[in-house]
């Protein structure tokens, strides 16, 4: 085993839990979170030599995790839009009939409707607010670390979290009022 592989193994062992949990908070699904975490570490392995020690290694890894998770959510949104467009023009999408992992009660967050509602509401938030809010809810991330991941200041993070909470509250309130 090469020294690069050895150090990579140690790095994975150290950060895998945090990376999987970070991805999980964004996608609400274990399988997707694990796949994303794999992509994150592959990216880390690929660009480890290009890593400049301007930031902490952990910050850099979590930044990749956040970017990959946001990309995944964007892809899902696009896919949804495309399949609804297909439905409008009358093309049947066979993949739409297959239950997504979120539909599987065993895999879903708490196996209830609330998780889906929360995810939908989170999906409407701007990326920066969503990221700051979700990371602030995760154990192990201080505001300083979130600021480093988002390449911003602590006060900006506090403001983002505050706005995210307010927006989320308003959206959920409007949703439950309609029911």
């Amino acid at each position, binding site marked *: 085993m090469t020294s690069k592989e050895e150090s990579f193994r140690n790095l994975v062992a150290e950060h895998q839990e945090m990376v999987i949990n970070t991805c999980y908070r964004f996608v609400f699904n274990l399988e997707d979170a694990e796949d994303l975490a794999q992509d994150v*570490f592959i990216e880390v392995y690929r660009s480890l030599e290009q890593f400049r020690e301007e930031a902490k290694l952990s910050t850099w890894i979590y930044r990749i995790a956040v970017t990959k998770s946001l990309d995944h959510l964007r892809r899902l949104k696009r896919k949804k839009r495309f399949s609804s467009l297909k439905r409008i023009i009358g093309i049947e999408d066979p993949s739409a009939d297959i239950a997504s992992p979120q539909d599987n009660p065993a895999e879903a967050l708490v196996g209830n409707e609330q998780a889906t509602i*929360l995810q939908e509401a989170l999906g409407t938030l701007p990326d920066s607010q969503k990221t700051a809010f*979700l990371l602030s809810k995760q154990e192990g991330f201080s505001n300083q670390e979130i600021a480093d991941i988002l390449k911003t200041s602590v006060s900006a993070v506090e403001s983002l979290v505050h706005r995210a909470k307010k927006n989320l509250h308003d959206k959920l309130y409007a949703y439950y009022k309609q029911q």
Partner: protein
Amino acid sequence: MKQEFIMKPHNDNIEAQVAKTMELLDEMKPLKVNHFFRVRLMQRVEKEFGPDSKHSDSFAENRFTLRLAFFTLLIIINIGAAVLSVQQNNRRTTSGISEMLDKLSDDYTGHEFAYYDKSAAYTSDTGSHETQAP
């Protein structure tokens, strides 16, 4: 007042639902990592970066060769373009000279010099007159 009294419990109910939904994130327990996660990851690393992969050294070498070939092609195209433009400039100067010479020769056949032709005709006429004279 009565309406407010009726509306308030409804609003409180909505607030409670919102709070409960938002609490889901706080209640999320950290996930335990699957034992096979690292095994699968290392297999993927081996597959993508191992000696038989597209990311291996030979691939990098090939990429370098391709880049080199591309730059060489660019240089050749540049030199070719430069040679062509120089040749065109030369052609333009030679054609300029020939045009100037043509103009010079044209000058003698212009209207200004038409006199000589007429006078020539005149002398021949006078010549005929002279011959006609006794």
